[in-house]
């Protein structure tokens, strides 16, 4: 038991710093930073995705559905790889491991959160949106003022457990050799 305390005491600095050339942050610090930044960005994206998923317009609903199903069906490790290869193609320059992981987390968490929010939206009685439309609100007004506040409130517990999942899921970075391999390719 005393060994554990000694090991932690001698090596605690490794919880905070990363590898030498890639900057001073690593371990616990970067986990916290990634999850907070990832969640802050994923939350608005997930709301948009959820609204698209329940949209009456087919050409909005379909792409959103495809995104959600693909993300749900592919392991996170595979997904990190795809982001690592396709984001540089899109923006034309290489990206750091941090950016890769952040983009992956945002897309991944947004898809899962969108499903939670959609369940919240569909759980509301239809009368709510019908009444709002009858009172003269536009479709967007109904969504923003009537549907979303209630749906988000009802789904708060499920959303919190999804947030916890986001903090846990960035550990997969650890298995990821993609970033290291990228340097050999250059």
């Amino acid at each position, binding site marked *: 038991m005393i060994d554990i305390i000694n090991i932690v005491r001698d090596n605690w600095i490794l919880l905070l710093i990363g590898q030498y050339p890639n900057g001073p942050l690593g371990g616990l610090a970067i986990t916290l930073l990634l999850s907070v930044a990832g969640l802050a960005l994923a939350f608005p994206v997930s709301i948009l995705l959820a609204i698209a998923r329940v949209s009456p317009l087919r050409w909005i609903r379909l792409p959103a559905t495809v995104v959600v*199903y693909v993300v*749900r*069906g*592919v*392991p996170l490790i595979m997904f990190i790889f795809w982001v690592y*290869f396709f984001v540089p193609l899109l923006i034309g320059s290489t990206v750091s491991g941090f950016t890769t992981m952040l983009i992956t987390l945002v897309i991944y968490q947004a898809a899962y959160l969108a499903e939670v929010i959609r369940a919240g939206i569909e759980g509301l009685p239809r009368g709510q949106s019908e009444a709002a439309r009858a009172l003269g609100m536009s479709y967007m007004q109904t969504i923003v003022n009537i549907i979303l506040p209630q749906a988000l409130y009802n789904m708060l517990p499920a959303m919190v457990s999804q947030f916890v999942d986001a903090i846990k899921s960035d*550990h997969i970075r650890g298995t990821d*050799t993609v970033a290291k391999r990228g340097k050999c390719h250059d």
Partner: protein
Amino acid sequence: MNSKLDFSVLLDPVYRHWIFDGIVTMLQLTAFAWLLAMVLGTLLALIRMTQNRWAERAVSVYVEYHRNVPMLVQIFIWYFGVPTLLSPAVQHWINAQRSEFLFAFIAVGMCMAAYMSEDLRSGIRSIPKSQLEASRALGLSYLQAFRLIILPQAVRIALPTLISHTVLLFKNTSLAMAIGVAELTYATREIESQSFRTIEIYIVATSIYLAISLLIMAAGAGLQHRYRIKAR
């Protein structure tokens, strides 16, 4: 990076063999871990239902540990940590077997058991207490009431979350790569580092994962349709 996709390299018999073996190992791991998760999850839900304060607390500690520690860490604890606690003879014996497969299966199964038990518990909670009381009054034992009355309804109600956690279990078997289980992700990395056909092999692997996940989801939707509770 190559601009042209060329899948013909992957038809090489060695690579084909690796991919096939990877798929088989992945499916074995999924099946075993799923069985362990379902059996253990049902047991945990059953223990939680007894309303013994200490048993309930023990189960909730189990669930919280497995839900809040990343699965990769759990796999590492099983693979690197647990064998050191065993006697050298047992360690020797384990190392002679497929120990990485064994520990990956235990880790994934025990972790997902926590999720499954929570799914089942929420299913059980949604069934009125009077059902259990009525079946006890009719002379069924506690276990009979659970098996014949409560569980069939609870499983049906919990089916959507059980299915999405089955998909999660399937996807998480890719983490077993980290301790050297030669499943599909492992095979993908091996082939990639030997053939340098990075994009191609990852397209193949991603399609396989996606296809099996969608298959599980479709099967789940079918089950849900077939066994829905008609009176509701």
